[in-house]
């Protein structure tokens, strides 16, 4: 006799979000979504927390820091040797220490991103298949060189000196650019960074859009995280890919409606407060001696790094 138990209760339960499968950790889409959202919210809080500490760079005017960031990133992209890049890295590291930032937290991210986007992406170019030069580390020897279409594979495959230099350069550039970005990011509240973009003549209306968007993102990230948590706590079996995709589509559509509603509310609030299309950011505070002194010091340091 057939039982009357609903089919969803007969399906094998999934007691936790991470399951072991053939030695690999498989994280279902809900868990991944929650992780991504949690990292966005966590980063926002971490940035807010670090930027309110009492370190050296936190005291400096945001305009000085933005110009420093752009000037130094330009220098980093223009340098052609590993040694000057290393000097710049040491300089930024000292500034990070002076700003009392968590070295472990910042450099964990910097080194991870540097490894992924610098070293790993550039690594294949160290081989003589891509970068011609003196082979310093032979890897394999083929009976003869091969040519097909536009590609040439030499008989001796290995890592070249020129290739190693190229990989080291790209890795150092990525690490230095990230170190500079995170130094500014963790010592400056986001709204100050956006406001400081005025020195680059970015229109006020564009800056207010970035500021508003940033606020919407954090408000709505929490909503999206709640949706994921609510869904995960209500399922007793794993969703099929089709069900999961339909759920995702429905939730994105819901977020779309919610953002439109929020837009209407914000617009009405703006009109209610007398908004008349004239967007003007409040003036900056006056530059102090410390700001000017730091600006001159950073400018001269930049000139030094540019010519070494």
């Amino acid at each position, binding site marked *: 006799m057939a039982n009357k138990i609903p089919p969803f209760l007969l399906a094998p339960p999934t007691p936790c979000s991470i399951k072991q499968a053939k030695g690999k950790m498989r994280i279902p889409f*809900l868990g991944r*979504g929650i992780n*991504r959202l949690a990292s*966005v919210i966590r*980063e926002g809080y971490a940035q807010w927390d670090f930027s309110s500490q009492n370190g050296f760079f936190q005291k400096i005017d945001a305009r000085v820091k933005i110009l420093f*960031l*752009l000037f130094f*990133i330009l220098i*980093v*992209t223009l340098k052609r040797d590993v040694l000057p890049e290393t000097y710049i890295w040491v300089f930024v590291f000292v500034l990070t220490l002076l700003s009392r930032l968590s070295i472990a937290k910042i450099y964990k*991210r910097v080194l991870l*991103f540097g490894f992924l986007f610098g070293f790993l992406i*550039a690594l294949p170019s160290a081989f003589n298949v*891509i*970068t011609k030069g003196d082979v310093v580390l032979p890897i394999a020897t083929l009976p003869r060189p091969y040519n097909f279409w*536009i*590609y040439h594979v030499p008989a001796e495959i290995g890592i070249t000196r*020129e290739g190693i*230099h*190229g990989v080291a*350069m*790209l890795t150092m*550039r*990525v690490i230095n*650019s990230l170190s500079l*970005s995170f130094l500014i*990011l963790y010592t400056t509240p*986001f709204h100050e*960074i956006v406001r400081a973009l005025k020195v680059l003549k970015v*229109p006020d*209306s564009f800056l*207010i*859009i*970035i500021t*508003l*968007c*940033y606020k*919407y*993102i954090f408000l*709505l*990230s929490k909503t*999206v995280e709640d949706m994921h948590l609510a869904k995960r706590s209500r399922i007793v079996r794993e969703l099929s890919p089709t069900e999961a*995709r339909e759920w*995702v*589509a*429905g*939730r*994105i*559509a819901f977020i*779309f*409606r919610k*953002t*439109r509603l*929020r*837009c209407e509310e*914000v*617009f009405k609030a*703006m*009109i209610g407060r007398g908004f008349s*299309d004239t967007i003007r950011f409040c003036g900056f505070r006056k530059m102090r001696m410390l700001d000017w002194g730091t600006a001159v010091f950073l400018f001269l340091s930049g000139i030094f790094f540019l010519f070494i």
Partner: protein
Amino acid sequence: MHIPDGYLGPQTYIPLYGVSVGFWAIAQKKLKKQLSLKHVPYLAMAAAFSFLIMMFNVPIPGGTTGHAVGAGIIAILLGPWTAVLAVSVVLIIQALLFGDGGITAVGANCFNMAVAMPFVSYGVFKLIKGKARGEVRLAVAAFLSGYLGLVVAALLTAVEFGIQPLIATGADGRPLYAPYPLSVAIPAMALEHLFPFGIVEGLVTMLLLKYFLKHEPDLVYGLSGPSAAKS
């Protein structure tokens, strides 16, 4: 697809900043004319929505999951000019706040993902949709618009990488920036975006459009024109 700092030389990233700034100026002028005072909260909302689309992981055939860029569906839902500004704002926030994509490469990233991708997606959608209202044809148009938009953006990124060894070399002939020639950069980028990333983008675009067609077709710019943005 976010290009980090150090991969593009000034000969590439400065002109691409110029091109992106030009598109931003035109987009803002058009939207301000269309939406008047409302364009500020509207664009901020569109940008936040664009960011949040990337937060959703979508299961794809093969058992894995991925997330979409979302520029294609934004172009269909809100119009290509709105997508230009919305996705650009997201890319700027990602570069400044999360270290995703370089600061010198913001212009290039915006050109690839916030200018080329929305226009290609919107153009493909309009072209395939034609005057038809059939659900299947609209679904195919939506899938291909997301898919081809992403593939074109990836190819542009590959070309930007691939021309570096041709235009920026040291005195000894060594590449100063991205080391891969066009013959390596294009196949590498094309393969991973033809599958699986393109599939994810196409699926998200198609699923969302199907959902809106069923529940709120009036909100879709690609079907109703600029009136959808005002409503």
